């Protein structure tokens, strides 16, 4: 029953309320970018991993610290990078003359079977 617990609880509840209110009506084309954006935000666990790793002092601690840091960094960096790429789609008015198509990897996870030069980021949602 500490003051700090009460403050933390208040902060938790208020942040929940902010989260509820900030998302209201969203067009469904934006659902995937929004999911990805909020996915990136919980990458803040990197901060937690840093603080926890700072007090590690044995092998187990170092291993866990390494795992936590790697996982969290992957979450945060990858999350923002992929969100940014997705949002490229929402350019208001792309060049009528298509830019030279950059080579596109075959897909990290190797599922791509689509032939031909692929170009991302040139469609968009007006509005």
């Amino acid at each position: 029953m500490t003051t700090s617990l009460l403050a933390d609880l208040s902060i938790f509840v208020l942040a929940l309320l902010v989260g509820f209110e900030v998302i209201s009506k969203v067009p469904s084309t934006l659902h995937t970018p929004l999911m990805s954006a909020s996915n990136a935000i919980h990458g803040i666990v990197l901060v937690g991993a840093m603080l926890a790793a700072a007090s590690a002092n044995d092998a187990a601690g170092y291993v866990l610290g390494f795992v936590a840091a790697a996982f969290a960094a992957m979450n945060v960096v990858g999350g923002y990078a992929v969100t940014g790429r997705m949002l490229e789609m929402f350019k208001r008015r792309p060049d009528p003359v298509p830019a030279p198509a950059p080579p596109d990897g075959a897909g990290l996870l190797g599922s791509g079977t689509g032939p031909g030069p692929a170009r991302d980021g040139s469609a968009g949602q007006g509005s």
Partner: protein
Amino acid sequence: MSTLDFVVGIVYLVAAIAFVTGLHLMRSPATARRGSPLSAGGMVLAVAATLAKVANDGTISGTGWAVLGAGALLGAAVGLVSARRVKMTAIPQLVSLFNAVGGGAAAVVALMDVIRLTEHAGATVAGRTSVASVLDVLIGALTFSGSLIAAGKLQGWIPGRPIVLPGARAVNGLLALAAVGLGCYFMSGAYDSWWLVGSLFGALVLGITTVLPIGGADMPVVISLLNACTGIAVAMAGFVIDSAGLIIAGALVGASGGILTKLMADAMNRSIPAILAGGFGTGDTVNAVAPGVTGDVHPISVEDAAIQLAYAGKVMIVPGYGLAAAQAQHEARELAELLESRGIQVDFAIHPVAGRMPGHMNVLLAEANVPYTQLKEMDTANPEFPSTDVVLVVGANDVTNPAARRPGTPLSGMPILEVDRAQRVIVIKRSMGHGYAGIDNELYTEEKTGMLFADAKRGLAELAASVKALVGA
């Protein structure tokens, strides 16, 4: 509280404002692109402030720095490269992967804290820490394994169809009981971290067995739900290590992710409990057997279809999941260009939930260089169907099903592309197989509809060849 700690706290607050503003901007397409850099800026601030604090506190050992640096660099590199390399259509599984590691990190953070506190025999853990730790470990571990399974399903490494094992519900119930029971035992005073590790393994298995029975097409909703769960796990990690930054950001994601999950489920006319119950959908790779091709259907030959298209004045192409599955976006663009070169007006009508992830069709056609101006959203496209000569439906089913206008079907209430108001309709699909919702489509038996049974990619290529032959191009 030192001045530095106070400043760090203020920086976390600033970061929280950036996160909220970022999400706010992403509510509308016009401002969405500004949201992500803002949010990322907040994140950079928060991490920098934490670095300063860790360095200033001085408790971290040299090895600690090395471990931390190596881990963070490795994670960042993997994250960055995979985000850069991934095909746009594989994004949901990548998001799910990032979500998995986020949940895993949250669980590990709690575990590390507990191990540190219980190193010495007879050590106790404060009530708030133990409750939060157990919640963090349970939710984080469940999210970790569940998200991996979800990613695997979407990627095709695990069959997308619902994998329902006999007695699965009972097993899930027992697993949940075991995981929670171990956690409670830990909380009740047995502060041995092995109990917590046991709880963690229970949750890991539970994550797998919960997601396996859910069909691949429901995965976007499941991923969104797991994303919200990770948010809550991170908030719990914040309680464990007493960091307001983690509590705020985690709760923010938990709540907004929850609302987003509801919106996504609503958009595809499904309820979240029904999705979680699993067993829905046939998966991505099933070879549909034609369930009763009745005599009412009018099959059409490639040549006839080509004639109709070549002599139309206005054509609308309706892409759906089948186009994505067959990776036929390039063939679609080529056919459209061919028709346009004959002076025919060609547009694509995009339903918001066509395909298997929100925005799927836009991404796909963007990849194939279809010009922006040719993509019509549902509200713009619907008034144009009555004046359209031929609608070419490519691997779309539910989004064109007129049954949605009637009550009592799984689609009831979903707005559809009103394809049946056009003069003529040509449907390319492989069989009379059902779509995601699993019901018959009355469009296929209408007089004006011609069914061109073929794989989307091959069908479109043959159509284009046929049109070329016809007009001698």
